[in-house]
């Protein structure tokens, strides 16, 4: 299939110019707008008017969005929906086998990501015009934000691992800069210590925790190169695979194949010679290392601790970077490298397992948080867990689907919380809110829509994506272990109940009931400006309709199953679950076809395999006995019912405890006695303290007392200082020779001449070897 795709891409790009479609060369413009914007704000921003900076920054991202949309539409109308790729120049080259192009790849997967990134970014930029209106460093904010979008697009559109890595580090940098945006914040003196203000510390924490993940990512890249480059591995299989890949990619010479380029690596793995096994152990290792990187960036256990602290940044930043885009980069990366994961079931197990654990674990913490942004932060961690469940069980397209819907509703929630915080004069504690629906009607409506979407209530986008993920998890059976799939499913389901519950809780405590601060005071507070409202409405609208591009298979009337989105993304991702189901289907599972709407049973999910005939024809190792005797359609339907059920239960429980009437059910204030369980959850299982005690403090102490005060001060510094002192002494001595007296100068010249002559003649007459030279030129 990729073969045809590439062929089509080649022919399409040739004809593109004639047919009025954009050419791949223009892809760079998607990246250039934010970069140009960032440069301008960085240099001139201080001198421009606030409105100018904000509007033009939004416009820059808007133009990126329009370009992305243009390319997406061009792909749609293009024959075969071929991807747009373009290699601009060789970025790094070293020797014959190492050459990294600077190339962009706008394919089915990155198209989705680019649209989400630029689209949501545009909305959030517009929102920020209002939100940051009082900030003195307005220009700096938009400069960082534009820079972030640039790096994010580089991460998404780069056609090789190294470009992705540059983008990866770049977004990390911007995240750091923006978390600590209010670095001189004095609002939280308690958190300020000798290492900086609370915000600065939060930025640092995010940066350092991400480094741990990046270490894994880099190791993964190294392993990929070492395993799949002919430079380091010239085994017969790899050479055959290269030959096959060259054929598939239509390149004349295997030297043009770069294993760090996504399409090339994929071709190499797909062209692995028949009859010889892929190095599964190494692939598993690669998969796990890459996932360590993903876990750092996407805040999964055990590296999630930075994300809640990252809420110290301005709220638009939380919405854009720490909910909608950057933190999903890990999911995108795993989906991008799906061709490796499908060959390494153990690595998939790790991904799915960690994802499920995170989904449940973070949801429990979310239950007892009182800071509105912290609740959303843990909810983000939890939802990212769902995405990793999806990519872990091999349903990559569904992971990306949830990524997209999550970007909509979570951005909407964060922006809503921003509106509330802005209204409440930067108070973030939900115990101080209540009854705000009266004052912030639009925020309230959009919030409720988004909250229900995340809770998974039907007809909203979150429902479609989360439901599908749980369904795929249920069918997951790595190495034939069904219990694993069921366990993941169970944890996901439990997380879903909790999600519905805490979202209802935070909604009720914020918007419903009666205000917990005097109404006359509330009445004097300023309402958010129009730009903020506009952004909320756009996102809420997307949170409603976002799910309809991929309705469950059993809903639809035709065999396509309405799964437009997933089919689209599966052009790149190799969907393992799809394969299994396909096999099951051919293995004799009953067809239970009833066309209809809503609660009627539908198609059997054949749609997933639309793009993957080739893979389906290969016999598969496991999964042939899955769910025999039961219609897949029926199963899917039952699972859907189950997830709707838990969502409703969660919401109902939340209503029961915190609902409209129960204005008294405010969480206990600081210092009040809590039940042990409550205390444990509220203190986030003391994980931060655990890390502090077991990792951070020992390392800190070791660095301080051994490395710094021991080795650095006593050995290195002493050596360097001594050297510097010595050098300066010599310098002073040399200066004393510089007397300014001509005779002295002449004497030195003559002395030099005499020395030179002595050397000449000593060498010539006595055949005295010049020092160092062994056996001279004679």
């Amino acid at each position, binding site marked *: 299939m990729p073969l045809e795709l590439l062929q089509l891409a080649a022919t399409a790009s040739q004809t593109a110019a004639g047919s009025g479609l954009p050419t791949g060369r223009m892809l760079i413009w998607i990246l250039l707008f934010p970069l140009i914007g960032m440069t301008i704000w960085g240099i001139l921003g201080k001198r421009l008017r606030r409105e100018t900076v904000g509007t033009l920054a939004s416009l820059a991202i808007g133009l990126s969005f329009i370009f992305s949309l243009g390319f997406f539409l061009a792909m749609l109308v293009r024959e075969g929906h071929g991807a747009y790729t373009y290699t601009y120049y060789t970025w790094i080259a070293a020797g014959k086998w190492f050459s990294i192009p600077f190339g962009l790849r706008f394919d089915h997967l990155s198209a989705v990501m680019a649209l989400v990134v630029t689209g949501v970014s545009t909305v959030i930029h517009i929102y920020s015009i209002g939100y940051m209106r009082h900030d003195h460093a307005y220009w700096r904010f938009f400069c960082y934000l534009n820079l972030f979008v640039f790096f994010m697009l580089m991460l998404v559109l780069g056609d090789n691992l190294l470009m992705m890595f540059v983008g990866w580090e770049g977004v990390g940098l911007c995240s750091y800069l923006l978390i600590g945006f209010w670095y001189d914040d004095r609002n939280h003196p308690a958190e300020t210590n000798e290492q900086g203000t609370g915000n600065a510390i939060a930025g640092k924490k995010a940066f350092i925790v991400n480094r741990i993940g990046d270490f894994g990512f880099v190791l993964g890249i190294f392993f990929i190169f070492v395993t799949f480059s002919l430079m380091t591995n010239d085994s017969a299989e790899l050479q055959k695979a290269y030959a096959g890949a060259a054929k598939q990619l239509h390149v004349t010479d295997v030297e043009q194949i770069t294993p760090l380029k996504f399409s090339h690596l994929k071709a190499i793995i797909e062209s692995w010679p028949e009859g010889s096994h892929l190095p599964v152990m190494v692939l598993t290792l690669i998969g796990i290392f890459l996932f360590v990187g993903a876990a750092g960036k996407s805040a999964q256990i055990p590296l999630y601790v930075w994300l809640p602290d990252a809420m110290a940044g301005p709220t638009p930043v939380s919405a854009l970077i720490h909910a909608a885009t950057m933190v999903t980069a890990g999911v995108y990366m795993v989906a991008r490298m799906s061709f490796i994961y499908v060959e390494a079931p153990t690595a998939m197990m790790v991904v799915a397992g960690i994802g499920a654990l995170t989904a449940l674990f973070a949801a429990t913490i979310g239950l007892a948080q009182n800071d509105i942004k912290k609740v959303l932060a843990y909810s983000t961690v939890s939802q990212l867990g769902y995405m990793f469940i999806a990519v872990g069980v091999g349903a990559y397209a569904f992971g990306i689907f949830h990524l997209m819907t999550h970007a909509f509703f979570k951005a909407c929630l964060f922006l809503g919380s921003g509106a509330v915080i802005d209204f409440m004069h930067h108070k973030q504690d939900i115990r101080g809110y209540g009854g705000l629906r009266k004052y912030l009607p639009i925020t309230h409506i959009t919030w409720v829509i988004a909250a229900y979407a995340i809770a998974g209530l039907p007809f909203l986008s979150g429902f479609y994506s989360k439901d599908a993920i749980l369904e795929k998890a249920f069918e997951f059976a790595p190495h034939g272990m069904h219990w694993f799939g069921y366990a993941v499913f169970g944890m996901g389901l439990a997380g879903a109940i909790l999600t519905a519950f805490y979202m209802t809780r935070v909604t009720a405590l914020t918007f419903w009931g009666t205000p917990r601060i005097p109404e006359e005071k509330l009445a004097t507070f300023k309402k958010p400006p129009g730009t903020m409202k506009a952004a909320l409405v756009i996102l809420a609208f997307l949170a409603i309709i976002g799910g309809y591009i991929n309705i469950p298979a059993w809903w639809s009337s035709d065999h396509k199953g309405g799964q437009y989105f997933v089919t689209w993304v599966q052009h790149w991702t190799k969907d393992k679950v799809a394969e299994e189901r396909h096999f099951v289907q051919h293995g004799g599972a009953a067809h239970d076809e009833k066309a209809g709407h809503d609660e009627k049973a539908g198609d059997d999910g054949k749609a997933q395999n639309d793009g993957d005939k080739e893979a389906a024809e290969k016999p598969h190792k496991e999964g042939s006995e899955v769910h025999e005797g039961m219609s897949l359609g029926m199963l899917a339907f039952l699972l859907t019912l189950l997830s709707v059920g838990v969502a409703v239960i969660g919401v109902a429980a939340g209503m029961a405890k915190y609902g409209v009437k129960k204005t008294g059910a405010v969480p206990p204030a600081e210092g009040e006695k809590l039940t042990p369980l409550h205390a444990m959850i509220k203190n986030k299982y003391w994980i931060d303290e655990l890390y502090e005690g077991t990792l951070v403090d020992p390392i800190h102490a070791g660095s301080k007392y051994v490395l710094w005060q021991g080795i650095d001060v006593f050995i290195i510094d002493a050596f360097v200082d001594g050297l510097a002192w010595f050098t300066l002494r010599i310098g002073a001595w040399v200066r004393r020779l510089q007397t300014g007296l001509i005779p002295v100068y002449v004497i030195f010249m003559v002395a030099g001449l005499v020395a030179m002559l002595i*050397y*000449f003649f000593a060498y*010539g007459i006595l055949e005295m070897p010049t020092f160092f*030279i062994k056996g001279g030129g004679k």
Partner: protein
Amino acid sequence: MNPSGIQLFLKQNFDIQTVMPLIVVAATALLVLLLEATIRGKSRTFLTAVSLVGLGVALLLTLFNFPGAKQSSFYGMVRTDAFAQFFTVIALAAGSLTLLLSANYLPKIKSDTGEFHALVLLAVCGMILMAIGNDLIVLFLGIETMSIAMYILCGIRVDAEKSNESSLKYLLLGAFASAFLLFGIALIYGATGTTNIEALINSGGVLYGISGIKEYQWDTGAYQFAETAAQYFFILGVAFVFLGFAFKIGAVPFHMWTPDVYQGAPTSVTGFMAVGVKAAAFAALIRVFLGIVDFGDLYSSNAIAYQPLMDLKDVLLGVIWLVAVLTMTLGNLSALIQTNLKRMLAFSSIAHAGYALVGVSVALRLSGDDRDAAVGAVMFYLLAYMFMNLGAFGVVIMMNRGNDEGEHLHDYNGLASYRPLVAAAMAVFMFSLAGIPPTAGFVGKFYIFSAAVSAGTVEGYGLYFYSLAIIGVLNSIISVYYYLYPLRNMYFVSAEREHKVELRPLMSASILISTIFVLWIGVMPKGFLSRALEGAKALFFG
């Protein structure tokens, strides 16, 4: 004689075209002198303009209408090859930038004399002569033309004691060095019967006993080719000539004059001396020394049954090795403790001559493409050095507040806060001088040290050249300290008071040009390097 005959004669023997840039510059110098004397009360800017036009025409002629190839003319006295072209360009560019820098500076130090322009032009003439000279006499002529102009330029501030001192010291010591140089030339002539460099190289055999003198050997009773005194004369001559050039490039231990002279001279002249004189002296040094040491090779290929007195290459190698090491180290160590920026730059220019000498010493032992690369690296370095050093001096000039004020390091405190662009330009120059990418200085050093490392692979010379590269790199590290010191003052120390820094157009243009070139060469060195390599290739005969 009929006209066509004249033309033919001219073409054959006095190809005027080959020295056209030189003639243009010399004519401009005379014109400026006349104008200065006859037109009174006119703005000096007019003279600057005339001079710049002259230099510009010469530059265009050099760049686009240079004979190229390996053309000798004037009976082999000058050789206008790509090597000469490269150094002619350096001389012309250095002269132009100096004039731009001086336009606003001279009134400030109350030395606004019209002769300044003529003298700079004449010095440029001398430099061009050194670049194209293919005869020791022409080289001497070039050195003297250049030096005498420089002596006067150093003392152009007639009312400043330091300037007078500078001029006098330079004159006395320069005369001393010139005497040695001339004596050396005489000795070489005595030994070989020629002063033409090409002929010198081809007459290797003469030196090694083909003079025909056979000597009766008392012990064996046979006549053999004598180890003639000519050889001693020649070696003595080589040493003296080396002294003459080493003085001009300020190599240790012939460098002692530099700090005093550089500090006393007007700053723009100091910059001109540091880049122009040095580059010209290197041109002559390379042309003479890399050529004549090929005697050894000639000897062996001629298969004369005679043992040469010594392998001149190895001896010179040893000398230049030591001189390069001393020059780099002493220059850097002395610069380290200076508190006056101008004096610091003066000392650092010694160190830079040392880096370039590394390339020369490396080129002595290499052959073929490797040697071209080493020589090309030196040429490239000198080009880069011209822009970064003149740029740095330009900023010093800009900061000058009449007399010698504004040159101290603390005068730069907080410059970045009130003159960010000037500070940024200075930062670029300092980074480049320290050899930090992506600036010209980094690329230059990189080529030189990589040439040293590649020479280290020559059998038996590993320790020799690796140590040279390592010492060079260590020196670069030392230099980072004092180059970053002004940056620290500019960016991290707040200003006690803001000094008046005037951004005059010509001066700013000069600094801007320097900045652009430093970055351009640093980012895209390929074009410049290929021109330098072309020059290096053209240098070697046969």
